[in-house]
């Protein structure tokens, strides 16, 4: 009995001492950190590693030294960005600057207005391009809920040698269908347009819809318009391309799936940001020489593609250094000549005048100037989720619950007719729009 009494007391005392010792370093670290200002940035792990090198090791370091601030950058994988943002908002704690890869209107209540930043930048660099303005501005609240520093074009990547061999140029969607089928039949190489629950598919299929005159919503962003003849025709065309020239692989992809498919030398055509061809230039230069870029294929109504990514920063209302965060963004935009080059033309400037002689820079590419030159006109053929309306919170949910990719997938899989699938997508979107109100 005596020894048991002693051990209990010893245990309780020991536990108390251990807890104090464990808490000690935490208290010390907090105190030492509080001495200087730290700007905390979260953003994606760039598909072009050279950009992260420039951003982490050069730009943020120099900016931090100049402004007497310690800058930390946390890179988050593309699939985990949204979950991380939700966690930070839930905890009301996190980074000062958070970079999304698509506009986040659902977060408007938790972010600072960027109107002041936009107007400052407009004085120096003129207006942002239209798609950036439509995707990051809420006309109802007259508020820029995010500040986009860059956007990413989404051109076609195709094998010049194989498409030349079958004598077709991927200029229209009908050409794409014809050429992809001939290459598959003659050379055995499949095409690769994703029909999966992921970002790249979301973007590419929207471009296809617009080419057929179909849209998710009207210009006022209040009415669902997805169930249209254009949508049905677009679904039928993609189903035909899948059946004639693709494999089940296109249902399996994540955002890097089509890159790997094309860079492996297996695929005849994909639609993607230029990270695919840039990767090939580094890993397999001989293969890269056979790759070409082209604007998105034209549909019966127009030639249009979606921006591949729209990088936009938000500053949380609970950010510890909101003014520093806004200053950082303004200085970043002012440095976009360097950023554009560091990203190897992946990041296109949201404020076009922040990069001087963009066409000249593209034409001076050391590897394939002809290919990259087509990007000079990318703004003309690029739009954004929610086009022709604004990117709203309802469109955000439609985008992130993959309503459009699944609408195409059900038909390609033979589970539904194009008409029924469009009808189901319409019902799903109306349900989502009703939840978010107008």
């Amino acid at each position, binding site marked *: 009995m005596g020894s048991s*009494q002693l051990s*209990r*007391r010893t245990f*309780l005392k020991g536990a108390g001492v251990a807890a104090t010792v464990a808490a000690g370093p935490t208290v010390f670290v907090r105190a030492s950190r509080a001495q200087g200002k730290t700007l905390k940035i979260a953003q994606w792990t760039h598909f072009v590693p050279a950009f992260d090198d420039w951003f982490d090791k050069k730009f943020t370091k120099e900016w931090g030294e100049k402004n007497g601030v310690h800058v930390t950058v946390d890179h988050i994988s593309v699939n985990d960005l*949204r*979950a991380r943002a*939700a966690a930070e*908002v839930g905890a009301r704690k996190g980074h000062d600057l958070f970079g999304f890869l698509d506009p986040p209107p*659902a*977060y*408007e*209540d*938790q*972010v600072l207005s960027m109107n002041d930043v936009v107007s400052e930048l407009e004085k120096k660099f003129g207006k942002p391009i239209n798609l950036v303005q439509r995707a990051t501005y809420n006309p109802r609240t007259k508020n820029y809920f995010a500040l986009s520093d860059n956007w990413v074009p989404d051109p076609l990547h195709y094998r010049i040698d194989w498409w030349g061999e079958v004598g077709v140029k991927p200029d229209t969607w009908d050409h794409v269908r014809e050429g992809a089928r001939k290459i598959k039949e003659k050379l055995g190489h499949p095409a690769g347009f994703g*029909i*999966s*629950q*992921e970002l790249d598919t979301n973007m590419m299929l929207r471009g296809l819809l617009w080419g057929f005159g179909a849209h998710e919503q009207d210009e006022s962003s209040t009415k669902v318009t997805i169930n249209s003849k254009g949508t049905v025709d677009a679904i039928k065309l993609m189903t035909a391309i899948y059946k004639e020239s693709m*494999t*089940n*692989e*296109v*249902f*399996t*992809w*994540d955002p890097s*799936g089509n890159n*790997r*498919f094309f860079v*492996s030398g*297996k695929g005849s055509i994909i639609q993607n940001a230029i990270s695919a061809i840039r990767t090939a230039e580094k890993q397999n230069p001989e293969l890269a020489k056979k790759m070409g870029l082209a604007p998105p294929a034209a549909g019966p109504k127009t030639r249009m593609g979606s921006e591949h990514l729209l990088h936009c920063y938000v500053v949380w209302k609970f950010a510890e250094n909101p003014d520093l965060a806004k200053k950082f963004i303004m200085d970043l935009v002012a440095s976009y000549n360097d950023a554009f080059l560091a990203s190897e033309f992946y990041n296109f400037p949201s404020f076009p005048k922040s990069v001087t002689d963009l066409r000249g820079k593209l034409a001076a590419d050391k590897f394939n100037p002809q290919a990259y030159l087509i990007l000079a006109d990318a703004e003309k053929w690029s739009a954004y989720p929610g086009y022709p309306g604004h990117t709203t*919170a309802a469109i*955000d*949910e439609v985008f*992130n*619950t*993959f309503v459009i990719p*699944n609408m195409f*997938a*059900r038909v390609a*899989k033979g*589970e539904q007719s194009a008409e029924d699938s469009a009808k*189901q997508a319409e*019902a*799903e979107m109306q*349900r*989502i729009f*009703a*939840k*978010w109100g107008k």
Partner: protein
Amino acid sequence: MGKVEGKTSVPGVAAVPLGGAAARASRRRLLDRESFLGPVMILPAVLYVLALVGVPFGLSLYLAVSDAKIASTGLGHFVGLANFTSVLRSPTFLRALANTFVFTLVSQVLVLVLAKILATCLTKRFYGKSIVRFLILLPWVAPISLGTIGWKWMLDSLYSPVNWVLQALHIIPASSWPMWFGVRELAMASVIGVHVWRLLPFATVIILAGLTSIPKEVEEASAVDGAGFWSREFHIVLPLLRPILTVAGLFGIIFAFTDMTVIYVLTRGGPADGTQVLSSLAFFTGILGGDLAGGAAISLFLFPMLLIVAVVMLRIARRAEVA
């Protein structure tokens, strides 16, 4: 404990003067009393459960009947059952509901059968048994996300080593290259397979414990009576293992019903929602889509099933306690 001027009275204990030594003695006695120390020691666990299970559950109940969004400044407004009627109108939800049952039931049947086989093997003596036991336990101790990412590459559409091995062994023709996540049935089989791989060690260990607790005399008596392997398995071992199999099964059902890591990493619910389950759909809707209330409503459809499982488990535990 009642306080009297200059003295402390403890029921059942004679009052003692409050000097320094006496106070220490009193505290010492207090820490030695089961009726005091018991609740104090259990309190952290109770607070832990309340804070990490009770509060979130209460919050999700409220969110499900509110219009809260991911970035709402408050908890939203009360909207009654609107979120439930909304999700019930969604074909995606109905598919996810069906998928959840398929995923859970098939994986649990496989887990129990395979775990029983493995456990039976592990009761025998053979060379390298400790290494086999270590390897079997490995999937359980490794982080689930890491293990699942490993499987994502094993079943990759371009570079799948599984496909290479199947081709090399002539199990599939050289021209065939299964797209494990690209066909609905294969995708469901893949996520079930990985989930079984993950849960198998846990069930094996539980069943192994059950097998070792069966008295040797019972088996010896059945052998003397001429019972063969199958007869012994079905008439003696399995009936005796029934309580522990039930526990393993019920734990497995809870893990499978609430898990989304395997599906999120491998298929993200595709192809065409072919592997979408309630937990992944709740995540996509509530966290990625921003409709917190909708996500909470979807996740609450898990609750009736989990409640039934919890009740059955508690009854089994109580019966074991009584026994």
